[in-house]
Each structure stands twice: as C-alpha cells, then as structure tokens.
C-alpha cells in the first residue's frame, strides 16, 4: 500500500517537473516588477492568479474590462467582490477559484495544480515570494506603497505593470490619463486655499469592538486628505495606528470618514450607539452631521482600486461642497462605469455605491 502511494507520488512529481520543463521551452520575455526584479514570463499569458494585494483584481477588471484569464485569487478579494459591483461587470469573477489559500496560507501544490502562467502578489509579502520561487512559478510583485502611499500613482503604476504583463499598452494610456486629469482639475480648484479653510478630517480606518485605528501620515489616509483639500488630524502619527477616544475629543475633527473596513455607519455615530464606552455626541463632525462612509464600487474606495479617481471627486465634494457645487457625483460615476467597465448603472446601483452595506466590512 505504502509503495503504491509512494510511486504515485513520484510519478506525479515527475509529471510536474516535466510540465515545468515544458514551460521553460516556450518563448519567454522579461518584465521588471515593482521590486526591480526581472521576471521571466511566457510570451502569451493565459492563466493568471492574484494572491494579493486584495484590491488588485478590481484594477485587473478596470484594465481588461472583464475578469478574463483570471483563474485564482485570495478569499478576501472574493468576499470583497461579493458586496461590490465586480460581479455585475464580470460575472465570471464569482467562479474564480480561491480554495488554494486557507487561513492566509498558500497551499503550493494546489497552486501548482492550477498551472498558472504568472502569479501577481504584494511586493511586501516576502514569504509568498519564497513560495513562488521554490515552485518555479513566475511571480510579478505589485507595490502598495508607491511614493509614500500616493493612491493615484499607485493605481497608475499597477495599470502600467499590467500593461507590460499583458502587452496591452493602449488601455493603459486611457486610464492613466483620466486619473491624471481628474487629479489636476481638482488641484487647480483647491489652489490658493488657505490652511484655515481646510476641514480637519479624521479617518476611521478600522473601528470595531476590538479595533480603533486611524490613518496617520505615510498611509493612504494622508494622501486622500492632501489631495482633496483637507487636514488629516492624525498626520503626526505614522501609518495605521491605534487611537483612543480622548485623543479624538482633543482633535475634535470637522469631518469623519468611515472606511469600508469598519461595519459602523454614520448613523451609529449620530445616534451614539457605536460602542458602549465611546460617547460621540460631543464631537464636532457628529454635532454638525458631517460623518460620511467611504463609497464602495468595484472595490472599497479607501485603498487604491479601479475606482480611485472617483473617490478623489467624492472627497473633494464633501470637503468643499461650495467649491464643487457643479460636480454631479452620480453622473461622474455613471460616465466612468460606462467608459471603463462598459456597463450602465441603474439608479439603485449608483445608490448602493454611495451607501454600502455594513456586511462589506467582513473578512478584514
């Protein structure tokens, strides 16, 4: 019995080695990823696995207009997709396999069985990098911290790298240009704004019974505040950090944005029923009714995603309603989705983007 198992195992190993050798004989090309590593990938990429960063599948869909060729992704990307518009744009997304990752660990043999041409992964995940190297799968690293967490440029750099992997330069230009124009238009309107005219913003990044975290500088929250004419109250802190209620009172922010990594909603703060020992009633943003939830379209809008240019518009309008009075967010979203995702949004879908459900914070 044991011998049979052993021989089966040996044969399967040989088959895999042969398969690996077969890969190697195809014509190949070199792509430089975001760690500066030169990765040799097959000439034609037909089978893609995205293990991380979680928003990358949404950018993939922005880039391709569909989830074509995507054969595997992280369970967290899949559960995020469930509450997003991703399945509406690319119905095949819910069929994508995520069973090769359990409890955040990649089962390398399951991954090999999928026979991916290339794996896309988060540059900071060195453990995964080692796994891919051992398995001999070409792996292209995507960085989440481009230019000190500049969201728009992170998105642009991801799109460019996807363009190199798939040799589709034409769609890259359109997306990157749109993002640049959006950014520049908003900056020119905000130009000359005095520091005291900028609202003081608190971003509730993780907020639950067990976590109370904001985004300091050197993280996406700082970028969003800087790019949309606001002051990040937590800019003295770095990255994502724990805070406490007393510090919030001291900051007394004008506006609070809650990300989709928290299941709390603005009304929880207005009605003061978020947490038993957190009294929000005295905080300025709550008193003045300026607590907002980050929208959620093709992915959560706080990290870089296929919808990042739209988030810039959303934040600018909420920080400076008088400056952006002429901006119709519903229309902007509709146009963007029609142009890049080739879909017409219903009224209900637009509403769902700006009023995401609590459950969308699951799996974080």
């Amino acid at each position, binding site marked *: 019995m044991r011998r049979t198992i052993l021989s089966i195992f040996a044969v399967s190993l040989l088959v895999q080695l042969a398969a690996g050798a077969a890969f190697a004989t195809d014509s190949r090309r070199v792509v430089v990823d975001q760690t500066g590593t030169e990765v040799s990938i097959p000439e034609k990429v037909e089978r893609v696995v995205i293990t991380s960063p979680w928003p990358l599948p949404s950018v993939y869909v922005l880039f391709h207009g569909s989830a074509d060729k995507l054969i595997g992704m992280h369970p967290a990307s899949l559960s995020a997709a469930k509450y997003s518009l991703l399945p509406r744009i690319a119905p095949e997304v819910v069929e994508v396999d995520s069973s090769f990752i359990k409890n955040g660990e990649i089962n390398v043999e399951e991954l090999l069985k999928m026979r991916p041409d290339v794996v896309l992964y988060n540059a900071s995940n060195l453990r995964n990098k080692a796994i891919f190297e051992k398995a001999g799968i070409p792996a292209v690293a995507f960085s989440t911290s481009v230019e000190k967490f500049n969201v728009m440029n992170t998105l642009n750099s991801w799109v460019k790298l996807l363009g190199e992997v798939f040799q589709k330069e034409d769609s890259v230009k359109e997306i990157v240009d749109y993002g640049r124009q959006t950014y520049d238009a908003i900056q020119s309107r905000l130009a000359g704004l005095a520091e005291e005219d900028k609202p003081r913003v608190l971003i509730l990044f993780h907020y639950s019974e067990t976590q109370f975290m904001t985004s*300091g500088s050197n993280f996406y929250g700082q970028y969003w505040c800087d790019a949309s004419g606001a002051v990040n109250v937590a800019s003295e*802190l770095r990255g994502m950090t724990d805070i406490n209620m*007393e510090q919030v009172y001291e900051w007394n922010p004008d506006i609070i944005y809650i990300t989709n990594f928290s299941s709390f909603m603005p009304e929880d703060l207005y009605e003061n029923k978020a947490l038993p*020992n957190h009294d929000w009633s005295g905080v300025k943003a709550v008193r003045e009714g300026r607590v907002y939830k980050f929208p959620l379209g093709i992915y959560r809008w706080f990290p870089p995603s296929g919808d990042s240019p739209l988030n810039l518009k959303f934040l600018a309008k909420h920080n400076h309603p008088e400056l952006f009075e002429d901006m119709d967010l519903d229309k902007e979203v509709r146009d963007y989705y029609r142009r890049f995702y080739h879909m017409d949004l219903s009224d209900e879908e637009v509403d769902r983007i700006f009023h995401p459900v609590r459950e969308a914070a699951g799996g974080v």
Partner: protein
Amino acid sequence: MTKRFDFRLVLLWALVLLPLLAGLFCIGVGRYSLTVGESFKVLARALAFGRDGVDPMNYSVVVNIRLPRVLLALLCGAGLAASGAAFQSIFTNPLATPDTLGVAAGASFGAVLALLFWDNLLWIQAMALVSGLAAVSLTFWISRSRGQSSVLMMILSGVVVSSMFQAFVSLVKYLADPEDKLPAITYWLLGSLSSITYKSLAIGAPFILFGLAVLVATRWKLNVLSLSEDEARSMGLDVNTLRAVIVVAATMITASAISMCGQVGWIGLLVPHVARMLFGSNNRYVVPASISLGAVFMLVIDTVARSATAAEIPVSILTATIGAPFFIFLLKKTGGNRL
C-alpha cells in the same frame, strides 16, 4: 535604609496614600487639554451633582474615559503584584509568579476558549479561573518529587506548562473564525485597558478585591508557609488547606486581571522584589507594599500608554521594556542575594 520598626510603619502609611494620590493625579493626565486642577474640579462636581453643571465633553473625558481606566489599572496592578508575592512565598521560590507558574497562560487559554463560545464576561472569568488553577496545579504536581519541590524543578515545570497552554491558545486561534472571533481573541491577548467599561469593571473587580482581601488576611501565615513543611506543621498550621486557599485566591486575581486587560507580564515578578528590597522579606509588609507599589506601577505604565503619544501604546510592550532592564539592574546590584 534604617531597619527601625516605626519608620517602616510610617512608610507603610505612605504606601496606603500613594496609590490614592497617584490615581487622583493621573485622572488629570491625558491627551485632552484639561489641567490637573480642572480635571479634579470636573470629577468633584460630577460626583456631587452628576452630569448637570459639567461641560459634557469634560464629563465624558474624566468620568467615562479616564476614571474607569485609572481604577482598572490600580486594581490590576495591585492584584498582579500581590499574587506574585503570594506565589513566591508559598512556593518558597523567588521566581514564582503568575507568568512563570503557567497561571497566566492557563488563564489565557480558559479565556480565549470562552471567547470562542460566548461573549459574556462572567463566563470568560470563570473559565480563566478554572483553567488557571488547572495550570498551577499541574506545575506544582510535576515539580514535586519525594514531597519536595526545588526552585529549579518548579521553574522548569512552569516553563513546560506555560508553553503547553500557549500552544492550546494558538490552537484555539487556529480554530477560531478568522472573520469574527479571531480579531477579538488577538486583540484581547495583546492586553489593553482602553476598552474597559464600568459594566465589565463591576464584574471583574469583586474577584480581585476578594482575592486581595484573602491575601492580606493570610499574610501573617505566609511567613510560616515559607518555612519547610515540617516546621510549619509543628506550629499547628494546616499547611495544605492554607496553601490551597492562597493559590485559589492568587489565581482568581490573575485570571480576573487577565480577563479585563489581557496578558500583562512582569508586574508579578518585579514589584514584590522591589517591596522586599524596601522592607526585607517579612510578608507582613511585603504583601501590602506589593499591593501599593503594583497599583502605582501599573497606573503609571497605563497613563504613559494612553497619553505619551497620540497613538495608543499596548501596555504589555511597556511593562516588558521597563520591567526587563529594571530586573537586570536588580540582579546585578544584589548579585541575586535578595532574590
């Protein structure tokens, strides 16, 4: 340091007042701009007239945020230090603490197991107590050979039992639902006093207070227990019962402290040694001094954790970074003689 008796009594009285004064002072310290004097006024008015007549923001900060946290820090610090002192004398082992005997790991396991099934703090307390007792009994049983248990044997068995229960904790984490239970467990193990409410304080505090009362009441007999067993018996003490009572009391304190503020190490080892440096090894003084110094130490640490930077610093990190160097200093200074 003179060894005159009356001088020590004065010092002991000072120790009673110290936590109270420190507590009042720390209510005036924090990120929100209130001077110590203003905070004190807010507290006084709030106690006298309730919410009315106090600025709601100030009321929130002083009464709802700082006060419960200060009380919790005082309680847990006092409890952990006193149970450290008690364990050290009944096992006649200077290194016996809730951490080294496996009580902390055992209680943690009980608590995370309870977290897996219920959200009820009382269950968490009960499970932590039972599991902590199981751990300490196991440690004691392993270390005994021929009726004796050497310091070395006890530390070794403590290490084994600790790592075993730590492994059980990891197992529970592995089995926990990553989306809803795991973050709660992870956060709880880190140890933070920021999520304390009066409600959870009301459930946890009686256990600590009762345990402390037992330790204070039996502190005279602790001296006898630290003699050899035959000597203690010849003085007419029921050694086994007494030992059991004290172990249960100290474990109850530890379990309760852990269930309210997670795993905070070092206090049970460090504070009793400081107390012994000040008062010699007579438990009549060591236990109350440990209670007082432990309360103040934890209060200072937690006040730093919540006010030093705009970000909240995990308490366990601070106790270790302050505790370890201080302990090294003690070791070098005394050459281990006083330990």
